[in-house]
């Protein structure tokens, strides 16, 4: 008995209707993981868009083009093995916590206009007086 399908391709495959033995996939059957970066237009920032599985870098690029570049505009795709990416452990995330008072390194932290205005007023007062 083979599977008879509405799909002529399935019928042609002559898959047995019963007793399909299947040997479970072994670990690493699906190969390593890669992280993918995508640049949509020239001058734009390349951004991380996701991951994929591939047996080597060349195929990772081929798959990345299919997976992340088949629909949207693409000028560049980068791949890198996930294992090569270093990250700061979540336990150490407190290193990103710094003083909340950071105006000294922002433009808004400097009120030049107010100072100038006060000084000019003072000058005027001195002349008129």
């Amino acid at each position, binding site marked *: 008995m083979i599977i008879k399908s509405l*799909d002529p391709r399935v019928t042609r495959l002559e898959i047995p209707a019963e007793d399909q033995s299947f040997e479970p996939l072994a670990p*690493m059957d*699906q*190969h*390593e993981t890669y992280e993918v970066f995508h640049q949509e237009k020239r001058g734009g920032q390349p951004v991380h868009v996701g*991951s994929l599985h591939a047996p080597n870098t060349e*195929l990772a690029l081929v798959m990345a083009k*299919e997976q992340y570049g088949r629909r949207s505009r693409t000028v560049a795709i980068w791949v890198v*093995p996930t294992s090569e990416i270093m990250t700061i452990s979540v336990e150490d995330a407190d290193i990103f916590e710094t003083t909340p008072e950071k105006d000294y390194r922002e433009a808004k932290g400097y009120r030049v206009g107010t100072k100038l205005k006060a000084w000019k007023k003072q000058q005027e007062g001195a002349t008129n007086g």
Partner: protein
Amino acid sequence: MYGNLSINDAPNQHDGHEEDPQLLAEFEAKIDRGEKIEPHDRMPAEYRCQLIRMIEQHAHSEIIGTLPEGTWITRAPGFGRKMALMAKVQDEVGHGQLLYGAAETLGKSREEMINDLLSGKSKYSNVFNYPAKTWADTAIIAWLIDAGAIINQVTNSRGSYGPYCRALERICAEESFHLKYGYDSVVTLATGTPTQREMVQDALNRWWRPIMHFHGPPDKASVHTDRLVRWKVKMATNDEMRQEFLDTYVPKIRELGLTVPDPNLCRNEKTGVWEFTDPDWDEFFRVIKGDGPCNKERLAVRKMAEENGRWVREALARPSATYTVPLA
């Protein structure tokens, strides 16, 4: 494409009380603030376990979902339709890949997920156990099944797990083409010859019950999932999503002069709630447990694809390669 299975919703192998109360409080506070959870954050075991189950089933649904439509690629009416259907099927496979990746970040390997699908341990959306008998079936699938899936996916994309949300946002953007393509296909048939109209009505008749099953069993029959709601794993109930679907699509179906094959389907003007004939939930549970028209064929085709590809994967394997969980 994905609906709500909910058959395994029976919760709580992991009781929340096992969790360290302080960590749990920090986790819940993060969710209450509207922050997303990322793969390396601490999370309750039940949260992890439910998300793996949900994302994995979603991934399987995308892959198995290509089979009923893929049937028609070789027989599509015209080159334009063939190109569009191939693009749609390729997108669905791509969605499966994105979702497997998101599930992997929670610690289940892709090999384990594929093995669980093929052994029957993991489920996929029930609608794909029904056959696509005519070209009009593919039109109804692309329009109405994808419409149901988009409602489900947009809802879930507001959930709390970062990688799942990111995958869903990408998926929803792509699904908008599927929906429009499906609508265009149905409109073409519905505004065509009497034979074409008959064909699309016939497909609608056959697909209506699976469509009504799509968002899962009614809320009154589901196990309470308060904690999953609180943790933003479950973002809307099955009934809420089904109502949203009916609200949007029943008028569009009727506009085409097609008949929804349920004489009791009507919107209660007072409550604004759609009322309909109970779509035989016994059949839903029977099919999900394996006894549907195409369950065997779907898994047999997937098994064959894995088996036939095995020697290629083995030939390409590098013995020194080691697995790393995808980053985000």
